[in-house]
């Protein structure tokens, strides 16, 4: 399984044509206390760059862009009662949604961990 990162601070874990999407620890630290997460229902078709998900913090609502195209298979139901999981474990238990990828080639332009860390260090 490989994890890739976007310049908009999403991560995507890829295992064959299945993928899991979340926001990075850096992103959650910038957003602050997360109070609500709006998630796409299973069956939703998403395109790379769509914003199927919105993360609400005390400060503001922020779009989360899908790093790849596909069909949503599952949303992280735990976030309905515990949106703060995105703060405490953004790159683990605070994952947002899973999808079946329609075009694995879309992942080519994404960063690996080392490249992302370097990108964040430069911000």
């Amino acid at each position: 399984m490989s994890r890739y990162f976007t310049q908009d601070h999403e991560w995507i874990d890829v295992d064959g044509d299945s993928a899991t999407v979340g926001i990075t620890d850096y992103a959650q630290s910038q957003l602050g206390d997360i109070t609500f997460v709006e998630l796409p229902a299973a069956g939703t078709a998403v395109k790379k760059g769509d914003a199927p998900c919105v993360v609400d913090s005390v400060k503001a609502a922020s779009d989360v862009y899908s790093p790849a195209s596909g069909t949503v298979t599952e949303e992280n139901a735990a976030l309905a009662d515990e949106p703060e999981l995105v703060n405490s474990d953004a790159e683990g238990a605070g994952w947002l949604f899973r999808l079946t990828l329609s075009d694995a080639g879309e992942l080519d332009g994404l960063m690996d961990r080392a490249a992302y860390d370097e990108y964040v260090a430069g911000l």
Partner: protein
Amino acid sequence: MSEVEDDIAIETLILPLDQWHRARGGRMVEFAGYWMPVQYEGIMAEHEWTRSSAGLFDVSHMGQLFVSGEGVEAALEAVLPIDLATLKPFGPRYSMLLDEYGGILDDLMVTRWNSGFYLVVNGATKWDDIAHLRENLPDEVNLMHMEDNALLALQGPKAAEALARVTEGEWPLADLKFMKGGQFKIGGVDAWISRSGYTGEDGFEIAIPAEEAAKVAELICAQPEVKPIGLGARDSLRLEAGLPLYGHDLSPDHSPVDADLLFAVNKRRRSEGGFIGAERVLRDLAQGTPQKRVGLALEGRQAAREGAEVYAGDQKVGVLTSGGFSPTLGHPVAMAYVDQAHCADGTALEVDVRGKRLPARVAPMPFVPHRYYR
């Protein structure tokens, strides 16, 4: 030919406590033309700390003005809908600057000092306020901008015990009741302290010389009850307390009547008028307004924010001017201007957030009860 252009960019200004905030880990943002801390450890934690202990806010961006001179009382009454005959010395009172159409230019605090009146106005509007006041006050009346002052606010249920420990004065600090003020010393520094604030909690606003601000802030923050609090929590606290924010809940589009702040137009002035904007205010008072500012409590956890439209069925009946998640209540709250027919407490409405309708009810404000020391 191009050298002039670079000079007109407006620079973000630095407040007296800038370095102090940065040293304490404040995340600085531009606000009202200044660099100010939006948060330190996090908005939620700072909000809860203020509600349970005591938070120190730097509000030095606000304008502190002193108005004095012959005829100052009548001159101020011509500008503000305030009744100065009933304003006893040293207690701040809420008032408003209105334009000639009764629209709200700013909200402010007015305190009678021995030789004149001390005004505290909003930071983002202070330059316009000064121009408006100068234009409308006679030449005999002096208007001084106290730019050498900083302003702090210490708010929360433990504010009084923390501040009393570092304060000396002719009277004990505990003698100050809500909306009273007096001259004290904090760590030897002259401080004008009033028991007032913008969180709904007991607390104090503290005017001190700018060059002593870091010393005073450090001394207050050294008390175990106190942590510094940023603008983020200031906004969520004032929203829970039902207190309007100028530029959002108040603007020239609204009068004190539809803003439901009629208490800022003192009783005698409602019958006599005689202040800028009185015609509109008295007419609104007599005839009513199409909408008024109300509180909304939303179900669920998704917040609605400024600009979101309010619906009764298919009919648009209002718009949000503030909104956010209430850390104390665990659900979102908002302020909105809503058609009078849908303003009664408990009225079920919906708020449109990106095409999704969130159920809401008109709710009395404050959303979280005030805990002033009366």
